[in-house]
């Protein structure tokens, strides 16, 4: 076949982009070193604490975005997994039932397990119904946390009594903006790379195929429920990581960490950043965080500013900032 040779050329770059683990590891190492250098160079504690919080939020948004990217559904309830991680640590520390390391592990396991169990029931549900379902589950949990005030302190929240050392490292390090910036940045870098690897893996491509056309995926021989459940589980796991970092950094939780408005913010960030890219939601989160912070600095009418930005960005760049940026980049690379 004569077309074959030409086609191989076409096909070649497509296959080359399948990530190699070495490149990924090198990228991760480079990102982490860069973060360390940055933290060393920047003196301002204020900037570092804002960045740290922005990055923890970015991890949250990355989890929400991954679900959109791989399953094509939008969750209005991921705060449930985030908040569950926070409260797991808070309650474990309050009752002194286990060492902090075990509590952190549990804080990662519980939301992930919940997502898995929930997923078996809810991933079949399409579109708006899924969004509303996650909203309902999240709010039910929020109401529960508010009601169970003997355990959770209700709306007053809970101070988390962290021990002096976590994983053998002084706890104060997790609460120092410079150190925590490096930690959370490294986690974000690893999460993004790991998710990119998952997305490029056979599993990632399968879930993308299921997202595109679940029925056809079944008729080429795949059970489609479990892969979708696993994507939801993975996204909840990422979100739980963010919850753990948040709790370590803040040493305080309140029911707000379960509220739908947090899920909504994470969603806004993911969409603004562009959920088709693995790093899009994190990018959107950092932009959104600082936009809100700056607007709040300038005026008490920050809400209107954020609202207008949101409307304008969505009207002009429905693919998200990250998507637009990636397009520009590709165009630039194409010309050069």
């Amino acid at each position, binding site marked *: 076949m004569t077309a074959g040779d030409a086609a191989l050329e076409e096909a070649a770059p497509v296959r080359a982009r399948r990530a190699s683990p070495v490149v990924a590891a090198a990228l991760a190492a480079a990102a982490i070193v860069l973060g360390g250098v940055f933290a060393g160079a920047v003196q301002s504690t204020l900037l570092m604490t804002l960045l740290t919080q922005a990055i923890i939020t970015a991890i949250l948004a990355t989890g929400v975005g991954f679900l959109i990217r791989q399953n094509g559904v*939008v969750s209005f309830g991921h705060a449930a997994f985030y908040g569950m991680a926070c409260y797991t640590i808070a309650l474990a520390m309050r009752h002194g039932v286990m060492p902090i390391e075990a509590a952190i592990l549990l804080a990662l396991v519980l939301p992930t397990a919940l997502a898995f169990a929930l997923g078996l029931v809810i991933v079949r*549900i399409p579109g*708006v*119904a899924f969004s509303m379902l996650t909203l309902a589950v999240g709010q*039910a949990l929020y109401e529960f946390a508010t009601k169970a005030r003997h355990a959770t302190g209700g709306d007053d929240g809970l101070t988390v009594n962290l021990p002096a050392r976590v994983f053998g490292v002084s706890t104060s390090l997790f609460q120092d903006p410079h150190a925590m910036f490096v930690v959370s940045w490294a986690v974000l870098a690893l999460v993004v790379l790991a998710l990119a690897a998952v997305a490029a893996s056979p599993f990632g491509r399968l879930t993308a195929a299921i997202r595109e056309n679940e029925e056809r995926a079944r008729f080429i021989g795949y059970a489609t429920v479990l892969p979708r459940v696993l994507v939801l589980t993975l996204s909840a796991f990422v979100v739980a990581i963010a919850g753990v970092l948040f709790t370590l950094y803040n040493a305080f939780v309140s029911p707000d960490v379960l509220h739908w408005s947090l899920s909504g913010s994470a969603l806004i960030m993911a*969409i603004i950043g562009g959920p088709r890219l693995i790093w899009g939601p994190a990018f959107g989160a950092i932009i959104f965080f600082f936009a809100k912070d700056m607007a709040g600095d300038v005026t008490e009418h920050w809400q209107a500013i*954020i609202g207008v930005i949101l409307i304008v960005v*969505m009207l002009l760049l429905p693919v998200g900032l990250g998507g637009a940026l990636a397009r520009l980049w590709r165009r630039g690379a194409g010309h050069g």
Partner: protein
Amino acid sequence: MLVQVLNGLVYGGLLYIVSVGLVLIFGLRRIVNFAHGSLFMIGAYVGFSVAAMGGFWGAVLVAALVLALAGALLDVTVLRPLQREDPIVTVLVTFGLLLVLENFAQFVWGKDFLKMPVPAMLSGSVSIFGESFPAYRLLVIAVAAAVALGLSVWLRVSRIGLYVRASSADPLTTAMQGVNTDRVSVVVVALGAGLAGLSGTISAPLLALSPSMGSYILIESFIVVVVGGLGSFVGAFVAAMVIGQVHNFGLVYVPWAATMIPFLLMVAVLIWRPTGIAGSHV
């Protein structure tokens, strides 16, 4: 007991008027309108301002009209240009609108709570089977019934209504029937927003006015819309009435679970029968 049932009807009726606007917009545009609570809130404020000058009935009329106009504007400037994008983009735009409208209300009407008095002619009580019941609450029930009746007649009789019903059931097929979707959707979104304005003014004599008041009703109306089977008008009516009763009796008899019941109901309905909603994508 009877009074409690009546109270459930009042609250259910109020929820219905708010929610049915959401149903209208969802049925046609497949959009979950997060700004709907804000439209309700702006309706209450507009009603408040007009009532201070022109009396209660004028306020109801003006608020509904102003919001209907705003709805038409919303459809033309936002929903229409975005109809080819992923619906989540539009949902986020309505979220942005929510933020802007709250801020707008805060700017215009201030941060303090405001209160609209009950119209004088309805401030008394009526005796029902020996129990006194506020006359104004009966008005709320009456308005809800009138809206439900008017809407169902309109949906059955008018051409646009026919289209809306068809579109709510199956948007794809209807789009292929060659109806002027844009013209229809202006009318429908305006009507939905107008009903939000109406419900805002109607509830103003019962509720404290604050820029964030929309958020206290938004999620509850979502519940109504979902339990009713997203896009279903009869379903929304039934769901609003059920939620109204569940709300009232729940608070009294199972206070510890009352706020969770509507959410659990929503989960149950979605898991049991997601098909009413299947095929729709956020």
